[in-house]
């Protein structure tokens, strides 16, 4: 399979313009990309024509005197016998051998060329990898070999990201190739401590790769977990100082998953820290900032088959910001070079933005917001897909949000947590945000989950700063149907009081629940979104400022008027909230439903984030 990225097209046009081709000719060759190409090509030309900074003559002349003197000294000094080969002469027979090989392969020469653009799911891909291996056979200089391996590893990551952009699963062959190249490069770098630039390049590249691999984790299939774990371990180890190679991370340390855990760090002993009640091993293989007792931290941890957690990376959460970030979910109104527009707001991309698949106008996505020098940016963008029902007998798989109290000891290595009477499976990538308190028996938590085949899988568990009776729970999900006096909301059975008016099928509901034994009884419910309404956006945010009905949150401002449905504790600065809303005619994001999650501030002095800039969609300008 061949693909032509915009990067290649841009590069080709830059080269063509340098060779004297006109801008119009180049744009005419790629009409579909002309609009994007034109300003970049003009800018490239302007940069090329920028006059250079000229050195002052006298320092240049003075430096020349020193250089000339040094050259004279070197000429008279005895020269060491060169240890390296004369590659020009040495490579000549090799070049002949390669030429012979190509001649032997005659008919497949075209295949080799075609394979260079192949992706890991192509039958030609093994040819691409083999060609690269052959290239390495003829490199006898260790450092040069490591440089090539770093390049090849970078190519593998580009291929993985391209597969992801094309909504394809990442096969094991590319993961294995990434692992082997990183391992070999790291081994060579360890033997050449003086090659600082090479080492820096490998470490920087491995850091970016590790971030991407961790973000890709939810998309890796069960069968590809082993090569994924090996690739991730090798990439992490390539970042460690060479003298710690012995104490590197073993893939087994990741066998049960890679999780994000955030909360307040408490030291247990030299190598063991407790975060939100969960114990995490921190040692010389952990990369990141030094932590101290009481620091708000975010860990990426590997979980081994015994359920033990070992920190791969640690970062200290910036003061005034919630550690696990804010999330915006909604339909894309516009896709631009800058980012995507949701509810009339542009959420900018930057070079670190991770896009988990194709994004297009009209698609529903979940955007995790991050901070950059320029303000709020999209940290990750993931398409939200509705899986097809398993069969006619079962409820369709669905996503829901559940609030309840933890029951039982969750400190023990376990893959199942009981919350509000429901058993949630802890998946290999369940994120845990314990910044508001410990994840322990009796703590109220918010669970983002999926129900499929009667199994409830938790994607994220957030400890809330709210106390509530053990039997109190809440559910946000789509109403499926009513049968025999029981309602099915997101496939979960809840019991409404008699003669309660039924919502329409497909309505998104907030349901306040009370537990009676194994039953979840409906105390009250609120319609959040009608079945045919697709314009609402959901914000999972922290309140940073309150001015009457105007709440400032990480996404900008939202108006929560008296007509909006409201639930939860009274709003307070520093508390987290879930808000549904839509942009009104005046361009203001108007809440239709808001639920405050925390009774007290989770972020003591929240920093009002630079709001996402507003764009005015065409035809909707004006107050």
């Amino acid at each position, binding site marked *: 399979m061949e693909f032509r*990225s*915009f*990067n290649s097209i*841009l*590069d080709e046009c830059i080269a063509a313009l340098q*060779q004297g081709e*006109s*801008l119009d000719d180049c744009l005419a060759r790629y009409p579909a990309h002309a609009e994007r190409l*034109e*300003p*970049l*090509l*003009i*800018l*490239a*030309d302007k*940069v*090329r*024509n*920028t*006059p250079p*900074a*000229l*050195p*002052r003559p006298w*320092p*240049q002349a003075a*430096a*020349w005197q*020193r*250089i*000339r003197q*040094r*050259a004279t000294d*070197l000429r008279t000094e005895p*020269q060491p016998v*060169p240890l390296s080969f004369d*590659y*020009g002469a040495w490579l000549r027979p090799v070049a002949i051998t390669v030429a012979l090989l190509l001649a032997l392969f005659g008919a497949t020469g075209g295949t080799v060329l075609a394979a260079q653009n192949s992706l890991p799911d192509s039958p030609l891909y093994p040819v691409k990898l083999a060609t690269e291996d052959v290239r390495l056979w003829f490199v006898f200089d260790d450092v*040069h070999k490591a440089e090539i391996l*770093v*390049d090849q590893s*970078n*190519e593998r990551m*580009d291929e993985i990201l391209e597969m992801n952009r094309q909504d394809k699963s990442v096969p094991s062959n590319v993961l294995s190739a990434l692992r082997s190249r990183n391992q070999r490069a790291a081994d060579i770098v360890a033997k050449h401590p003086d090659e*600082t*630039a*090479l080492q*820096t*390049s490998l470490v920087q590249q491995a850091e970016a790769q590790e971030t991407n691999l961790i973000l890709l984790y939810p998309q890796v299939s069960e069968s590809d977990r082993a090569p994924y774990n090996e690739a991730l371990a090798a990439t992490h180890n390539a970042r460690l100082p060479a003298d710690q190679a012995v104490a590197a991370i073993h893939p087994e340390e990741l066998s049960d998953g890679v999780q994000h855990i955030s909360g307040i760090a408490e030291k247990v002993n030299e190598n063991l820290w407790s975060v939100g009640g969960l114990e995490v091993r921190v040692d010389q293989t952990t990369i990141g900032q030094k932590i101290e007792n009481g620091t708000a931290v975010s860990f990426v941890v590997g979980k081994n088959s015994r359920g033990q957690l070992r920190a791969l990376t640690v970062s200290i959460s910036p003061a005034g910001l919630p550690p696990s970030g804010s999330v915006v979910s909604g339909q894309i109104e516009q896709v*631009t070079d*800058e*980012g995507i527009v949701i509810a009339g707001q*542009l959420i*900018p991309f*930057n*070079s670190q933005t991770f896009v988990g698949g194709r994004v297009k106008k009209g698609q529903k996505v979940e955007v995790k917001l991050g901070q950059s020098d*320029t303000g709020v*940016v999209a940290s990750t963008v993931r398409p939200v897909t509705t899986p097809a029902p398993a069969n006619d007998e079962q409820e369709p798989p669905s996503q829901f949000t559940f609030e309840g109290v933890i029951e039982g000891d969750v400190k023990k290595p376990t893959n199942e947590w009981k919350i509000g009477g429901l058993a949630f499976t802890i998946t290999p990538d369940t994120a845990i945000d314990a910044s508001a308190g410990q994840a322990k028996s009796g703590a109220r938590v918010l669970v983002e989950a999926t129900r499929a085949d009667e199994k409830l899988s938790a994607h994220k568990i957030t400890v809330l700063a709210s106390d509530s009776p053990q039997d109190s729970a809440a559910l946000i999900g789509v109403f499926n149907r009513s049968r025999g006096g029981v309602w099915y909301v997101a496939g979960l059975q809840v019991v409404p009081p008699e003669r309660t008016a039924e919502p329409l099928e497909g309505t998104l509901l907030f349901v306040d629940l009370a537990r009676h034994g194994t039953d979840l009884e409906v105390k009250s419910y609120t319609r959040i979104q009608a079945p045919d309404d697709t314009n609402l956006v959901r914000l999972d945010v922290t309140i940073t400022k309150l001015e009457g009905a105007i709440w400032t949150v990480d996404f900008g401002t939202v108006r929560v008027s008296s007509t909006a449905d409201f639930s939860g504790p009274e709003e307070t600065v520093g508390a987290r909230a879930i808000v549904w809303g839509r942009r009104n005619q005046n361009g203001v994001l108007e809440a239709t439903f808001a639920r405050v999650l925390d009774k007290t501030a989770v972020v003591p002095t929240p920093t009002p984030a630079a709001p996402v*800039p507003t764009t005015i969609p065409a035809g909707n300008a004006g107050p």
Partner: protein
Amino acid sequence: MRAAVWTLPLAKSLDKAREAPAREKPAGDIAARPGAPDVLAEWDLVKRAQAFDAAAIEALYQAYYPKIYNYGFLQMGDVQAAEDLASDVMLKMIESMNKYHFRGLPFGAWVFRIARNRLIDLHRRRRRRGEVDLSETLSSALASPQALAERALERGQLQVALKHLTDEQRQVIVLKFIEGFDNRSVGKIMARSEGAVKSLQHRALGSLRRLLYSDPA
């Protein structure tokens, strides 16, 4: 970050770019176009310099000192620091000359690799000592990149905009468009693949465009 709004100077420049003839390369520019004939001619010069031929060493010095100075000045924004960098790199070039072996890549790529390593070391030393980044002072002393973009692209304007790019994006812009290296050489200098260079080039131009032409309002 703001939504990009094209300003008038760029709209004008679109027409100018269409009308402008292809730029002529300066004559006698040894490493500006690392194409095949120049590379081979330069390899002959390097072989002579490796045998300590004074004229060849001087020719290489005169060719590369200004380039390394420009490279350093664009990255650090400080005349003295750029002169020190150029002088250091030239000394290292002379001392390590015999380690260079022609493998199809221009000598310039090898010299710039030395420069890049020195620059990395320099930044690391400064960070360790807690010194102020020299380009910070320059950036704050000058107007914003958007304000400068009202005029034709000038060195100061480019320099301020470069300051806002990531290190790798800045390297690609300087090495590819200012110093005139091809992708392979840029990749060699930065220890990145050609694919990564193309990708960085796209991102760097995109960021530069946003910095220079986004609406300051």
